[in-house]
Structure formats: structure tokens, C-alpha cells
């Protein structure tokens, strides 16, 4: 079936199997491999994207559900060589190790800070509870969120 959707500002079409997820469409049909497939069950958040402005696990959304909608992925955050403040903060804070969870976390943090520019630690923890990271123990991810909030003019 043909799915038409706007991805990172550009209308795209893909001929997908009806059971395909939005994640599969992004990765395998459109070559946008920044969103990662790690659990296929919405447990790990590695595939986080925005669907019409709402943060979703793209592995839990059928490609067909995104028909005629707008999708924004991690690939849209940097402007050329200029990183998004959240990306910059992750590097500065040392919040990246293997990096597999990183794109999903960066999308989730960017979403959080769009809604709450100066979140308290408990709010951050709750907001990121759906993003698994196996390498860092999360300490430097918390540092990165604080740093990103500062860079973006929150507190």
C-alpha cells in the first residue's frame, strides 16, 4: 500500500507492507536510520519521533497511521553542521557512549524542553522513563538535560 507523509518538511511516498510500522518505513523505505529499532515493543524509546507534533514510539505506529501526517525525526534537529542545543549538551555532558539510545533520547529531551523549558529533576526522570540506556547509568543524561535547558534559555 502507498503511504504519503511529510517527513522533516518534505512530502514522501512509500509502498509498504500493510503490517509495516512507521519505524520500518522510515528506516527501510526512506533510509532515515537515525531512529533505532531496539525492542519493537515501545519499551525502549530508541525509535522516538514526532507524529504531528506528538512524541511517539514509531515502532508502535503503523506506517499507514502516518498517512497524510507530518513526521519529524532526529535527522531534522541539526541545521547542517550546527547542532541542536540538546545534541550539543549530550556531547558536552558525556551522555553518549554506544549511542544507540541517543537519537531517541535526544528527541525525547527536545520534546520535553519544548513543553517545559526548565524541568525539575523528577520531571525529567518521569519524562525519560520510557527511554532505556544500557551504557551510561543515566547520570550524564540528567546532566545533559540540565545543560540543554540552560543553553535554550530555561533555567
Amino acid at each position, binding site marked *: 500500500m502507498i503511504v504519503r507523509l511529510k517527513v522533516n518538511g518534505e512530502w514522501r511516498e512509500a509502498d509498504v507492507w500493510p503490517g509495516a510500522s512507521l519505524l520500518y518505513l522510515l528506516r527501510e523505505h526512506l533510509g532515515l536510520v537515525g531512529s533505532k529499532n531496539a525492542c519493537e*515493543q515501545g519499551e525502549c524509546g530508541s525509535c522516538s519521533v514526532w507524529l504531528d507534533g506528538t512524541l511517539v514510539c514509531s515502532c508502535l505506529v503503523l506506517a499507514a497511521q502516518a498517512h497524510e501526517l507530518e513526521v519529524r525525526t532526529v*535527522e531534522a534537529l541539526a541545521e547542517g553542521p550546527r547542532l541542536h542545543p540538546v545534541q550539543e549538551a549530550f556531547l558536552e555532558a558525556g551522555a553518549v557512549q554506544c549511542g544507540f539510545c541517543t537519537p531517541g533520547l535526544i528527541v525525547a529531551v527536545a520534546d520535553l524542553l519544548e513543553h517545559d523549558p526548565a524541568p525539575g529533576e523528577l520531571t525529567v526522570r518521569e519524562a525519560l522513563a520510557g527511554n532505556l540506556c544500557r551504557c*551510561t547509568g543515566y547520570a550524564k543524561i540528567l546532566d545533559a538535560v540540565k545543560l540543554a535547558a540552560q543553553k535554550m534559555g530555561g533555567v
Partner: protein
Amino acid sequence: MSIRIRERTKGGVGESVRRVDGTPKVKGQFLYGSDLWAEDMLWGYTVRSPHPHARIRAVDVTQALTVSGVHAALLASDVPGSKTYGLEVNDQPVLAWERVRYQGEPVAVVAATDLETARRAAERIKVIYEVLPAVTDMEQALRRGAIRVHDHGNVVKHVHIEHGSPKAKAEVWVEGYYETGMQDQAILGPESGMAVPAEDGGIDLYVATQWLHVDQEQVAPCLGLPKEKVRLHLAGVGGAFGSREDVSMHIHACMLALHTRRPVKMVYSREESFFGHVHRHPARLWMRHGATRDGRLVAVHARLVIDGGAYASSSPAVITNASTFAAGPYEVPNAVIDGTAVYTNNPPCGAMRGFGAVQACFAYEAQMDRLAAKLSLDPVELRLRNALATGSVLPTGQVIRGTAPVREVIRRCAAIPLPPEPVERDPITYPGGAGNVSRGERLRRGVGFAVGYKNIAYSTGFDDSAEARVKLFAGGTGPVAEVHSAAAEVGQGVHTVLVQIAREELGIEQVILHPSDTLVGSAGSSSASRQTMMSGGAVQLACRAVRDQLFERVRRWARTRGLALAPQLAIAGTDVVGDGRTIAPVTDFLDEPIVATRVYHHRKTESLDARGQGDAHVLFAFAAQRAVVEVDEELGLARVVQVACVQDVGRALNPQSVHGQIEGGTAQGLGLAVMEEILIKDGRVLNPSFTDYLIPTILDMPPVVSELVEEPEPGVPFGAKGVGEPSTIVGTAAIAAALRNATGRELNRVPVRPDDLVGLEPPRKSAGPPPPVKGAA
């Protein structure tokens, strides 16, 4: 040799330099094994045994081959070369024939135009099994008449260590029995890679792995190809923690690619990943500690049994490690230690961060607390009284020659301020957290302490050397050094450290990395906390050789001009300098690039003799942790409030990254302490998903207060010890101790479950005395 007399190079050793792979990783542009793509590529898929033990009566692939888009369906008979492989013992079938020995064992592989088609074709492969009774209990497997997993019996390896007198008398004895569950590495990036057939009849395999060359050594014979025709290239690795030491999809993808003459990509699903790699060994440990009344250890008697599952993997090395560390980081004049790794029809177990030291630490630290209680001594004081130091003799007879700041890590850890008990708090901070189940009515706080240690690099006579090649050439804006190393960057940051070392040694800032592959010599494995020392050492040697060649060119140039040069030359930024004066730009001497390849070896070690004696380990790293927990006594829910960790690191080459290793390692220790376990019933995995196998989330992780003890290790590059594992080793033990302290319960098994915390589940009892091993001393 020239000694540099200059300012430190920016981005060199000791700085918290940003990761060299950081920018592509935050942008989503870093290519992991699962992100690879090639024109015309096919997808591979694996057919696995649903049974823990069965005879294969027949396999029929004809139906699968009729599916449109299917290009191959291969069986054991299609393996071109050796039918088996293995890290330490060549016992694991590439594809099973005649018999399957664990649930999930690969039986056939399929290649199709897309993953879904491959999966559907796999369902149409008919395998007729005759189900056999399975042996799924590690103690049962050692009993007379047990079902044999292999014809050579069920003992993978037995280790016997005897030190001092086995009959030494002590004034006080404590005895305990302990169990640990099967932990999964839970790498977020699944097993993945792509095999591309080459025109020379060979193959290029791009794969997420920990050691390219040991893969090459196992893959090539199975493909019936000479090693040089099997070229491995490191694909992006989404975490490892031991899970990528063993071969997974490597040989299968290569077979399919050679058969179809097309690139073949394989990526495991999460469920398949649980079957596609080895796990941390479940262990049963019996320990008796004897001491004087004033708290000096006199004797340790330990019996360890670990479940190796169906194939050997690295079980022999894991049980050796567990056994040599069974007495803990303490001076023990008399010890008898017996360790056995057994075959069962459970999933194979092998390497995971901590490598046998985790299970041992959980048991010996519980014993130390028991002993402290019996002696009415402060647990920290008891540990201080018995702590190892430089010059101490281990149960193996090995004398610790390097640094061993054990008392230092204990004292400093105990001195870290305890977290205050909050007066007012958000309900999310109670045990149960976002579940909003507790208001803290029956909250008990507990504090636990643990000390542990582990070897750095491979042991018992193995020369796990590392090679590196460094090329210095003239770039557009000055001299550039390129480092070529096969060291696998698995997230730990080794590539960044290698760049830092090259900057430090050469004194130039522009350092780039050649992709890691088998076109340079082996770097050894990214495991055993060894790469900073080993590949770091190789890069250091290669840089020094490059520098010497450069200065030789400078002197030759000076001689032809009759110039007198300072006896010592150096590189400062982009210039060669002598006596603080600029001589000429470095690039003036680089019409031809300078290349040097060097191999670093650690000091020689010995294998253990029949009594377990030998200078087996290269060097040791120590850590102490103190955990604070809260337990809701009614609900059996626990929350870790704080972990304080002090680790012996020799020297921190990238402090931010070292703290990152400690924090991440602690999280995996916490996981084993309170939540992580692959549940197995009759050889079948019950929870192969992230919905059912829980790993710590950001809500589960407490603040980790980490401090470093920096006493440079003599004789190793920059005095740096590996840092990846010690925090995982002590993490589980410290948290379990804190839970005991909070509840007053025995809690002799990890992961500790709610039922254990409220007493619904009694402490685990040994089924009997520890099973002896036939032929063991």
C-alpha cells in the same frame, strides 16, 4: 629518546576530551550494524530450535524455497568448512545437525529480498524433532547418570585452588550458601552485520563485534577460506558488555552471501537477541570463612558451580576467574577453592562485564558481613583489617606487584557523606515510584558496603597482544596522524582514548582514525577492561617510533646543512622544536609519510597448576561501593537511594569517560541486584523481551557519587588501569547488603525479588552438600 619540553597538547591524556564519534551519534548519522545497506542486498533470517534438547530427524527446505523472493535456505550440510566453532573450545555447531542442545540453537538460515519474506519462508522450513529429556539443573548435571549434553561429559572445566593448609583452625567460622540468576547484557543495538561477497572469492564482513580478529579466526575455517580472504570491518556497535565476544550472525551471513553472490544483512530482533548471545552464568556458591576473634581471616573454603549452558563459550575462563577471586580482596593465609563450570541444556553462558568476579563478590561480601556480625565488628573495619595491599599473596600464590590501594578505596568510600533523609518528598521518590503505590508508611532504610576486584587483560599465560599502526603525513593545514587499530569501539570510548594518546605522544592535535578492520593486526578483545592498556600501549609505541623517524629525518636534514641541533627535539603544535626554539614546520619533513606499526604485550603470566598455583593475572583493579536503599516492608518494593563508589583507576586518561564507566557499570550491578534475570523453566526462556526482562530505567537509578583513586600502575602505559568492570562487580553486592541491612533478612539470592523482601519466599537452600567433581583433587 627525545624528551618533550613543551606545553601539553590540547586534547591529550588526562583531559575529558569529547568523544570522536559523538557528533554523528547525536545526529543519528552513526551507522550501526543494523543500519548498513547495499544495492541488491538480501536479508538473512535464522531458524532456531524450539526445544532445549532434541534429535533432528529430518529437515525439509523445499517449501521455503518456493516462496517468491527467497534466494537460499541453508543447513549444516551447506557449511563449506568446519561445522563447528568456539572461542575457547571448538564445540558449537554453525548450524545444528543430528542434535540440538538448547532452545534457540540455529538449525537453518534463509536469505530473501526483505526481512518479512525471510521470516515467512523460515516458517515453511520443516524440521522434525524427536524431543529428548533435558538436563537443566547445574547440580543435577554433575550427578552420576545425568543426561550427557556432550559425549565428553558435563564438566566444562574444574578449577582447584589450594593455599596454605586445608585444615587450618579458626576461632570463629561463618558459613553461607548463595545463588545468582542469569543476567543478560541487554545490548540496545542487536546483533547485526552485513556480508559482502568479494571478487577474489573471499568475503567482507561488516559486523558489530568486540574482537574482529577472533571472529576472523572462527569464521574463516567454517567458510573453508584462508584467513586473508575473510576481511572483517567494524560496524557501529550498540553496546557489548561481553555479549559480542562470541560469534552470532557472522558465519550465517557469510554463508548466505557466498551462496547467493549478493550482500546479505542480518539483524536480530529483540527476542532473537536473547537467544543469539551468551549470558552471565547463573551461579551457586558455598562458602565457609574462618577468622580470629579480632577479625583476621584465617581460612576461606569455597565451592562454586556455574551453569555454562549447552556450549563452552568462555566458561573455562569465567570459572577460572570466579575461582581465583573467590576469597575477595583480602589476605587469606589458607584457602581451598573449587570451581566447576558445567554443561546443561540451558542457553549458553559466557562473557558479561565482571566475568565471574560478580558472582564471587556477591558471595564473599555477604560472608564478610556475616563475619562482622558474628564478631560484633563494624563491616568496614573488618574489611580494612584484611584488605590486600601491594606485596600481598593471593590464594593462587600470586604476589601483587602493582598498586593495590584497597584500604584507600574503602576509607574514601566510607567517608562520602550519606544522603539526608528527606523531610518532605514527592510520591514518585518512594519505592514503587511512578506506580504511586506507597506513601512510605513502612519504609526502612538500609546501608550496605562492598569491596571487590578483578584482573585487567587476559590471564593464565595468554598473550593477548595489541597492534596499532600510526601514519604521520602532511595534511592541508599541518601534520596529521592517522591511527589504525582494530580495537572495537563498543561505546566505552577506546577510540577517543587512542586519539588522546596519539596527541599526547606526537604533540600534534590533528589525529584521525582509520576505520577498524582486519587489515591491521589484532588489537585483542574489547573486554577484560584491557583496551586502554593494550591498544593504548600499541598506539604509544607506534607514535614513539614515528617520532623517532621524524627526528631522524630532521637530524639528517640538519647535517646536510651543517646545522647544530639540540640533543633533544620535540614537536610543538605544527613545528619541530629544539631547546625551545622552532626548527622547521613538521610538514617540511613529510614529503613521504612516516608509518610505524607496533605491537604491545603485557607482562607474561602463567597458567594455574594442579593445585591452582600460578602468577595468573597481569594486574588488578579494585573498587568499593556503599549503597543506601529504602524498602517498603509491606509491599516488598525497594529503591536504591544513593550509590557511593570509589575506584582504583591507576590514572584517568579521560576523567569524564571514567566516571561514565563507573555510573554505567553500577547500573548493571543494580540491575542484577534487584530486577534482571532471564527466567528459565525446563530449559525454556520465559521472558525474552524488554517488556518482561527489566533493565534499570532513569527512575530506578539513584545518584552515583563516584571518586577516583589515582595511583599510577607501574609498567603500564600512563599508569592507567582498565575501568569498565569493577563498579559492576561491587554494585550487586553492595545493594544486596543494603537490602539485608534494611530488612534483616538473609537475601542470599540475586536478583532480590519483592517476595524475598517481605519474607514470602524463604532464603534459598542448597539441595545438599556441594556436588563433588569426579577426578578433582
